[in-house]
């Protein structure tokens, strides 16, 4: 929280400034049974994972947040901003919506250079900050092992580079206070670093995930079942041993991946890190 204004104050938009809390009020599951929670409150810097089998309602949950449901979606949930029913303009005008959603289907289609692509977005948002484009590329490069150059064409970036760029863009240029990431773990980005940076910038993030590392790095885990929230887990340090083990396993796998890429035979030791 402390870093919020020091790191990011120069391009915090009005809407970002004014949101300090998003609240989810319960609806019902697919069979109409009411959800068993009182309220879920999301504050800047929070990391939350949504887990559960396919069809359990994970994506519907983040869609409710994205559209600011007012007991008018299939789940009957209600979303409050700063404890109140959100102002009409938040819902009505998508450019005021304080949420960025990146899904597994999200693509960059524009055949432009990275620099031109970001500059175009900067213009559309009427941002005057002169260094924001190089800053965004620099941030994206913290999320991926494959260097992104400003003259790379967007369409030739790898999956991991694209996701890294989209996350950096959502943080700095869209400057959305709440970022929803729907199953982006397979794209080969440094998930730990992403979570760290999101915290530094005081962004809240909700991951829809099947990834053990992302789940273990989140402070809260929302478990979905039959379209409703089944329970909310707060590990509060009880998973720390497993988390450290999974972090090491993940690092091991990352290194193996890099060595396979580099054309090596993995005959020597190197397990675990």
């Amino acid at each position: 929280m402390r870093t919020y204004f020091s790191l990011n104050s120069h391009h915090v938009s009005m809407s970002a400034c004014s949101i300090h809390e998003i609240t989810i009020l319960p609806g019902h599951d697919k069979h109409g049974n009411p959800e068993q929670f009182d309220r879920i409150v999301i504050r800047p810097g929070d990391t939350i994972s949504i887990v559960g089998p396919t069809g359990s309602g994970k994506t519907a949950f983040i869609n409710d947040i994205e559209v600011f449901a007012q007991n008018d979606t299939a789940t009957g949930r209600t979303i409050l901003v700063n404890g109140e029913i959100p102002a009409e303009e938040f819902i009505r005008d998508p450019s005021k919506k304080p949420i960025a959603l990146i899904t597994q289907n999200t693509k960059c289609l524009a055949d432009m250079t990275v620099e031109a692509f970001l500059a175009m977005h900067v213009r559309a948002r009427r941002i005057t900050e002169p260094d924001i484009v190089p800053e965004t590329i620099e941030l994206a490069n913290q999320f991926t092992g494959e260097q992104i150059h400003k003259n790379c064409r967007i369409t030739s970036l790898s999956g991991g580079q694209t996701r890294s760029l989209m996350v950096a863009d959502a943080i700095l240029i869209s400057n959305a206070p709440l970022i929803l990431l729907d199953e982006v773990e397979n794209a080969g980005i440094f998930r730990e670093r992403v979570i760290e940076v999101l915290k530094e910038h005081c962004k809240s993030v909700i991951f829809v995930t099947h990834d053990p590392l992302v789940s273990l790095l989140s402070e809260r885990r929302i478990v979905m079942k039959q379209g409703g929230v089944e329970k909310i887990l707060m590990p509060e340090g009880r998973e720390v041993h497993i988390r450290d083990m999974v972090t090491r396993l993940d690092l091991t796998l990352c290194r193996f991946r890099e060595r396979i890429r580099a054309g090596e035979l993995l005959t020597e030791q190197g397990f675990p890190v």
Partner: protein
Amino acid sequence: MKLLIIAGPPSAGKTAVTRQIIRHFTGTKKIAFLKIDVVRAFEDEELRQEFGIPAKKIYSGDLCPDHTGIMVLQDAIDWAESLGSDIFIVESAGLCLRCSPYVTQSLGIVVLSAVSGMNSPLKMGPMIALADVAVITKTDLVSQSEKEVFREKTKEVAPSIDIIETNAIQGTGLRYLMRSIEALPDIADRKSIMLRGVPPLGVCTICVGKREIGWQNHFGVIRKLDHADDLFRGD
């Protein structure tokens, strides 16, 4: 009876949006549907089968489809009213983008696809400028950046248009479209319904079947490559 005119380029998701509208109002409102297309269309059969609503189509064939739409609209309104419809949805063919099929006393909905390229709103002119609502579909498929740029370009064409971003297959975010439809007044006087904009000049020798290329081979309203702007002069 409320009148909805839905336009937009091919494959933008007009019928997906229509389906969401019908689904939303099923049970509370009686809906009739007309599809205008050029050679083939299946929407009427699909919607009739899926929702059991009265649905019709008309083929324009050699005629411009928006021209056809204008010609038949008065009859079509009579047809929908004779069935006691509460909402009448007219879906255009979605072709040359130069025409704008919206009329007074209706809700004009333009359906645009976020994957169609960020400059595409700028190329459409009156199809966007004269609409009340722009429904931007497939926003789940493009980056936040492209979504925001597409939105800004749409606003550049029509600064006061209502923009609704959606994945029309899922129907996310369409609540405001439904609210606009609920708030839409019924047709007050169907004899006085007018086109909102003037269509482009279309009475020409190409329209009547002359196939030669080059202005030298045509008469009426002609245009050369150079030394002509948007002003057309008869020869």
